[in-house]
């Protein structure tokens, strides 16, 4: 049983990264537009995040240094500060969107007004973050998010054309709408490799006091956690391809995503889907809230960590409280959470090289890593993905503009 609990960190990081409020709608939109043709992109994204999260976890376990420490040291203060500012803007956008997403789900469950539910969501996150130990936060939100597996059950009941589904795992270009297809491919890759996942994951490794003895656990966490995140993305995309594409439905709302479980499985499917979305989005909110506070603390050299009492890391505690308060202000302004997080994904793509290049450098540095330095396989994949990341970073914003955010 304890072994199962030990992979909660990877599951929470992955669920937060793969099925947050924007990804839920983005994956569903991708399936509704292109059927199963973009499934292979999720596979590319999953392998990429596994490669880099394994490196981050290894670096953190061996050197006790999480990602932002490495960014500041390897890129210097100026560029490091640029990375800090850009990542914090994206963190705040994402956190605000997730808080809005939690309120939307609560509204779909209760039919209460949206704005008061935003306050309920923020207070709920603050209370859980203040009171619950790190391990319990991981378990509540990581395992709660597993209710999303209802979409996998729904897929079976929808009887998709499995031959076409299988064909979707083969890299291909769409027969029509090349630019929109490319926009969705870039967005899916960006969402899979979004930087806050590795900030959160590597800091979590330090929070949990992993040592080189835990490198097997690190590998299990990233493979199972991100593999599961990818599996949930597949389920959402296949659901949309089987259910929404034939009827010409263009998903724009969280409710449409939940409808994908309601149609094949009825009210139980709907409730499980909404619960899963609530925990996944709540997990993403906590991922981003902590990531923001971790980044500030690690960049400026403050005491940090959830394992400390708030008085033991006061500036870290103030940082996450301020981020949560700012997110409340942003989402209360009336901005659409789904649109906000889609912008956040695309903007985060631009910052990907600033996050992943320092990780690759530190993971190759024998001074830090000793005998745990990157092997040939990790470097081959690391370099390959670095090329992909740079291409994706250069094309993300032009594609967003040219395709009118995927609307064509």
């Amino acid at each position, binding site marked *: 049983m304890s072994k199962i609990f030990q992979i909660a960190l990877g599951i929470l990081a992955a669920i937060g990264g793969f099925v947050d409020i924007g990804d839920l709608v983005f994956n569903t939109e991708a399936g509704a537009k292109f059927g199963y043709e973009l499934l292979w992109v999720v596979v590319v994204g999953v392998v990429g995040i596994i490669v880099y999260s394994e490196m981050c976890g290894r670096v953190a376990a061996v050197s006790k240094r999480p990602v932002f420490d490495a960014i500041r040291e390897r890129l210097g203060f100026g560029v490091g500060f640029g990375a800090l500012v850009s990542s914090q803007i994206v963190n705040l956008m994402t956190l605000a969107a997730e808080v809005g997403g939690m309120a939307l789900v609560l509204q779909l469950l209760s*039919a209460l007004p949206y704005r008061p539910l935003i306050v309920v969501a923020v207070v709920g996150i603050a209370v859980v973050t203040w009171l619950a130990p790190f391990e319990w936060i991981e378990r509540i939100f990581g395992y709660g998010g597993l209710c999303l597996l209802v979409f996998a059950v729904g897929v079976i009941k929808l009887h998709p054309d499995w031959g076409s589904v299988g064909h979707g795992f083969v890299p291909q270009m769409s027969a029509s709408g090349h630019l929109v297809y490319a926009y969705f491919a870039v967005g899916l890759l960006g969402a899979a490799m979004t930087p806050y996942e590795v900030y959160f994951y590597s800091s979590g490794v330090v929070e949990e006091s992993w040592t080189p003895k835990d490198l097997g656990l690190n590998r299990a966490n990233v493979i199972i956690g991100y593999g599961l995140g990818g599996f949930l993305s597949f389920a959402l995309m296949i659901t949309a391809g089987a259910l929404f594409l034939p009827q*010409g439905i263009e998903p724009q709302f969280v*409710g449409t995503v939940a*409808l994908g479980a309601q149609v094949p499985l009825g009210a139980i499917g709907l409730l499980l889907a909404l619960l899963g979305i609530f925990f996944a989005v709540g997990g993403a909110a906590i991922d981003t809230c902590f990531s923001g506070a971790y980044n500030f603390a690690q960049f400026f050299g403050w005491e940090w960590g959830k394992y400390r009492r708030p008085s033991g890391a006061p500036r870290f505690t103030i940082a996450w409280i301020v981020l949560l308060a700012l997110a409340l202000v942003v989402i209360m302004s009336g901005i659409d959470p789904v649109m906000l997080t889609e912008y956040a994904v695309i903007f985060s793509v631009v910052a990907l090289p600033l996050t992943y290049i320092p990780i690759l450098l530190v993971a190759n540095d024998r001074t830090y890593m000793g005998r745990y330095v990157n092997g040939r396989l990790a470097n081959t994949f690391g370099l390959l993905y670095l090329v992909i990341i740079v291409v994706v970073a250069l094309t993300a914003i032009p594609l967003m503009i040219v395709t009118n955010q995927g609307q064509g």
Partner: protein
Amino acid sequence: MPLRASIWLALIVLAAAGCGGGTLSRKALQKQAESIQSLAAEGTLVAKGAAGDRTTDNFVSVHTDYLGEAARKIEKDLGSSPATGSLDAKRKEAERLAGMVADDLDRLHRTPGNRGLAAALRSSFAKEAEAAGKLSK
């Protein structure tokens, strides 16, 4: 051109664009018709769930409210963007359809637990989706 004049020109262009006074292009009308078709098709699924007691009243009420708002926005946008020639007749038809979809969604939003109404609205949505689909061709 002096900087101040350029800024004024840019502001005038932006203001004109923001007034919504431009004429509707064929492609824009097609997009709007596709959106109406999408909302009506989604209304069909929600109404089917409500008619078969396979969903929750809260979900039906809240989700149809969001869908209805989107349909009403399309109706308003189409009403404020005239088109020329034969395209204008299509625009008016699309505007009428968007209004019908919004009205039906509003009825479902107000009485989500009425299974008989949901069954009737299901076929109404299906017809609206089909009509919007033809319009988008």
